């Protein structure tokens, strides 16, 4: 128990640090003390306050929400499918969202505001295709069937995306930022459209924590307790699809985060209990993405780089260190 409290404390401290640095650093550095004053409402209305409030705060909040969403999506999918390789990629969401976004970038370059909608719609469409295949016929809802259907649909959408990029090579460069995963400074607009999907996904995930702990003791124990295992798996997949598609709409393709963060918190906490893993993955994912976002913005300021590679650079060494030490 103490170890879990320690992990929570560590993750929360990391998140607080990542948030404050994300607000303070950028093309213009705002002193840490002033950043905190601005956050507390004592900013005094100078240009720093405007930078923090209108540019950095929305982006930092986006990073936290997307990071938490992907961490949770990975945690509940790995739990529901009892498979350590499960991530939003596996239920087709990432492939679909990528295709939807590239479709807008390449075919409707004038309406780039539609990009989040395209990513969201195709992400959910891909997941719906996976679910309708995996939850019908014999063995409906079995782990193997979900994963195989997911990989097939993922390949299909990836191929379509590659085809589009190959057909319009001159427009491919503008797609790279989305594919690599990037946070933009577009204020609150995207969040204003997408937040209900996040809200629904977070609520489903919270309701799934207990059923997932039952499922961890096997389908029979779960059924003995009155749950229906294939419905728990479906619920988890739907919640993960909502969270991952909404994330892709805002920040591009960051599937790696959903795969790795739950493993990191499981190894650090020494338990696979969802009461611990789901909230810890949310905090861990938020911290990792906020920190990655700061790096992506400051290393070559004022040029903004996509956050995906930086997050990977931060996350992989930690993951590998734990993998060596714990497993």
């Amino acid at each position, binding site marked *: 128990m103490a170890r879990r409290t320690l992990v929570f404390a560590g993750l929360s401290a990391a998140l607080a640090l990542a948030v404050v640095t994300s607000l303070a650093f950028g093309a213009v550095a705002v002193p840490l003390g002033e950043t905190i004053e601005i956050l507390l409402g004592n900013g005094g209305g100078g240009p720093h306050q405007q930078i923090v409030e209108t540019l950095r705060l929305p982006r930092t909040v986006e990073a936290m929400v997307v990071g938490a969403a992907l961490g949770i999506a990975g945690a509940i999918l790995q739990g529901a499918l*009892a498979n350590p390789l499960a991530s939003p990629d596996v239920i087709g969401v990432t492939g679909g969202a990528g295709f939807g976004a590239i479709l807008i970038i390449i075919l409707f370059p004038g309406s780039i505001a539609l990009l989040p909608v395209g990513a969201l719609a195709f992400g959910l469409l891909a997941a719906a295709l996976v679910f309708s295949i995996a939850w019908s016929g*014999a063995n409906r809802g079995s782990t193997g069937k979900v994963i195989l259907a997911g990989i097939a649909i993922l390949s299909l959408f990836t191929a379509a995306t590659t085809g589009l990029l190959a057909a319009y090579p001159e427009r491919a460069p503008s797609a790279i930022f989305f594919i690599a995963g990037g946070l933009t400074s577009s204020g609150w607009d995207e969040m204003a459209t997408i937040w209900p999907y996040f809200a629904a996904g977070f609520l489903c995930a*919270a*309701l799934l924590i*207990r059923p997932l*702990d*039952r499922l*961890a*003791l*096997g389908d*029979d*124990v779960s*059924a*003995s*307790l*009155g*749950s229906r295992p294939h419905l728990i798996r479906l619920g988890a997949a739907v919640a993960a699809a909502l969270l991952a598609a909404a994330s892709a709409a805002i920040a591009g393709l960051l599937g790696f985060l959903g795969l790795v963060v739950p493993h990191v918190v*499981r190894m650090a*906490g*020494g*338990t*696979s*209990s969802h009461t611990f893993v789901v909230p810890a993955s949310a905090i861990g994912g938020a911290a990792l993405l906020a920190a990655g976002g700061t790096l992506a913005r400051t290393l070559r300021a004022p040029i903004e780089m996509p956050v995906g590679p930086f997050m990977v650079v931060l996350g992989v060494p930690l993951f590998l260190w734990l993998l060596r030490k714990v497993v």
Partner: protein
Amino acid sequence: MDTGEQESNGAPMLQARGVEVEIAGTPILHGADLRVERGELVAVVGPNGAGKSTLVRAVSGLQRLAAGAALWSGRSVEEMRGRELARARAFVPQRMPVPAGVTVREAVTIGRSSHLRPLRRLSDADRGGIEEAMERARVTRFAERSLRTLSGGELQRVQIAIGLAQEAPVLIADEPTSQLDLGATIAIASLLRDLVSDGLTVILVVHDLALAAAVADTAVIVSRGRTIAAGRPTDVLNSERLAETWGADARLTEHGGRTALHVAWTGLTDRGGDEAS
């Protein structure tokens, strides 16, 4: 533990009739009956593949019925969902998967979760129920240990504790002793018998006929997808039936609480082996 009392007047704890089950188009059960009275221990016995596990899974609501009916205190299992089902019976599988880092107490707490509304925390009554389930299954001593560090016998008792935490009046155990050594088997047998003395009803799927005869009030014999006999173990498990159903030249004896199955292991004696093959 007053589940179903109001509608139980006269109705047996479990009454299953004409149960048929198909799995992936293959008929597994075609006409099985199972009647269980309040407070008895019923052993379901039969050869491998006869349909014993399928029968108890079907009456528990873990397996869809193709035909027939299973009534818990008069109410059909097919009409029960969620919490109602969890409070009617607890099903203890042969071997559950064991998640990493989960302690015995946490696992038993999961068994209690059928009592909780979504997002609600454990009440004092729930905590008491968890402690009591661990006491009764004799796992309190290692409550803080991780499931992965337990022996087979300890893990089986934890599984029973998870079932007890449901506080259902019936515990159904599917071959709990099939992978255990003699001492651990005795521990499970005496535990189940004590639970019955405390008022619990137990349905036990078991291979070991000497064990079944020792612990059960009633033995139900399943053969080739049908129930073919039910009654006092030493009556229904007579030599003729052991020959017909198991193809064994064997005799079951009981004396002073000890049971024994005397078997012609190499089939050298005259009866049984040939006619069954």
